[in-house]
């Protein structure tokens, strides 16, 4: 999995970054490919690292960043704690969160410079504190290279890799009450449901929407793609049923599978 930042709008940014600072010692040219049809991009791999650990343990991860543009880029590496407020993720600088993990981050190297068409690696070492309060850290490649934006504005771009920690088996997922938006001539039937991670560990729920007829027999189903939920995070899961249902009474069963088992909720609806 790679985190890719498309920079199609900066194909001509070479002129902006005219100051050559020499190639990073750890960078290496990537094999030449036919890039004429590929949009310029910067990629960070892996995009997500999931670690099962215990408090007090350290681990080192290797991240690879690739520059597939014609521009020379410079990044400063930093770590951010990922906390959840009101069901949404908030990125907090290292040291500003009680029980945070980002404050322990050690990068090697701490600054990365990438010539066009090269890739390089950086290592991040993180230590889980004895009483951790967060379960995710972002290893951020903070862009330092200014690029022309709209008008006279200059912009910079950054990429991050998410590192999550599972420190116990305390997992709990709350399924909200499902709601149904009936099919119309221009839209499919949609079943929506709110998922909330009520445990202390990250979850990756996935599942299936099954449509049953009034006799309880299976009419059809749709897969629900995996979606990562940090502790406290909410997600409005909306699933479209792509087929047209005949008039009648139906029941939508939403079965969600995660690290703690399988949960199913259902709602009855009528297709006129």
């Amino acid at each position, binding site marked *: 999995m790679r985190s890719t930042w498309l920079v199609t709008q900066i194909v001509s940014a070479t002129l902006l970054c005219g100051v050559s600072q020499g190639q990073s010692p750890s960078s290496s040219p990537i094999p030449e490919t036919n890039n004429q049809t590929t949009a310029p991009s910067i990629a960070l791999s892996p995009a997500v690292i999931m670690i099962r650990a215990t408090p007090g343990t350290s681990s080192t991860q290797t991240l690879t960043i690739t520059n597939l543009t014609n521009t020379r880029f410079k990044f400063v590496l930093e770590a951010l704690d990922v906390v959840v407020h009101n069901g949404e993720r908030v990125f907090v600088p290292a040291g500003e969160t009680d029980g945070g993990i980002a404050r322990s981050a050690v990068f090697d190297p701490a600054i990365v410079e990438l010539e066009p068409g090269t890739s390089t690696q950086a290592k991040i070492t993180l230590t889980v504190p004895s009483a951790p309060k967060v379960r995710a850290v972002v290893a951020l490649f903070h862009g330092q290279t200014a690029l022309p934006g709209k008008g006279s504005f200059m912009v910079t771009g950054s990429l991050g890799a998410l590192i999550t920690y599972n420190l116990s088996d305390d997992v709990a997922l709350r399924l909200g009450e499902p709601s149904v938006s009936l099919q119309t001539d221009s839209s499919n039937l949609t079943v929506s449901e709110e998922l909330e991670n009520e445990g202390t560990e990250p979850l990756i729920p996935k599942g*299936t929407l099954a449509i049953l007829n009034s006799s309880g027999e299976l009419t059809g189903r749709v897969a629900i793609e995996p979606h990562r939920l940090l502790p406290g995070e909410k997600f409005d899961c909306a699933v479209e049923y792509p087929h047209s249902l005949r008039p009648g009474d139906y029941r939508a069963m939403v*079965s969600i599978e995660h690290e703690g088992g399988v949960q199913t909720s259902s709602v009855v609806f009528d297709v006129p």
Partner: protein
Amino acid sequence: MKRVLPLLAVVVLTSSAEPVYSRADTPVSAGQSPNASLSSASRKNFEVRESNQLLVPMEQVTAAYSLDPHVAEAQITEGQLSIWGRAPGKAVIVLVNPDFSTSWIEVTVTQAPPILPDGAWSGLGSGANSRGYYETRLSSDPLQFGNVFDYRPGPFELHFSNVVLPSRNLPGTSSVWFPYSYFRFQDEGLRLTLLDEPVDSSPLSVESTLLRGAHLEWGQIAVHAGYTSVEGFQSLLLPSESQSIVGATFAHRLSFGSEVGVTGYFIQRNLASLDRQTGEDVGTLFFKRQVPRGFCSSPVMRCVGTNFF
């Protein structure tokens, strides 16, 4: 010598193997819809081989669907849960009861053995001077080791295969099994085989059955004595769900690729059979005719088997 076993083997579990799944109608939390329920599962797992189907008698279940359809598919038909293994891995099957409460079971799909090419000899060392070969395979998900050994000195032939599945923790079964092994002596119309041999006597007696025991073929007479297993010997040498079979076949070749014969078998009643009145002594007369490929597709020709008893 080697025959291609049917890819689709239907395995019917006995009523004693009925899953102990619990129904769940416990609301997850007070804030949830009354219809929301936490499905629960027994620790009993099911296992099916890739490209095979598993039939499980399942009462009071109106629907079933898989949460991992790329690994296994499931559906309810006529009171039976049908599980189809698509690819190695683990899958969760959700079962829906008439009151729309749910439960779930876990299914492990194991990797199917390789399909070797037809011929008197196959394998890595299939050259003219080769007398045998050894092959080992490792699959990662689920972790599985496979070994195949073939050796043929003169009229003797030894074939040995075993599979080790370390993660297999089904109660009463072993993580090591020997799906197909035999020792054979063959010379001038006489063929003696010990352990496994696929038996194809007649459609109404024993056909497409892998029999583990002793087998003698001498001219027009074939005698078989041994046992078979609905689970395909997915345990050690003596499977728990065995079925004894003893009998003989006399076949006389006619012209034009035809054959007429008689069989007599004692077939122990299948424990999985729902009909307890099934007879155990079977005698059949048969007429077989081998037709060219595509012959039966002619609209005026039918291939018919007749039950004489």
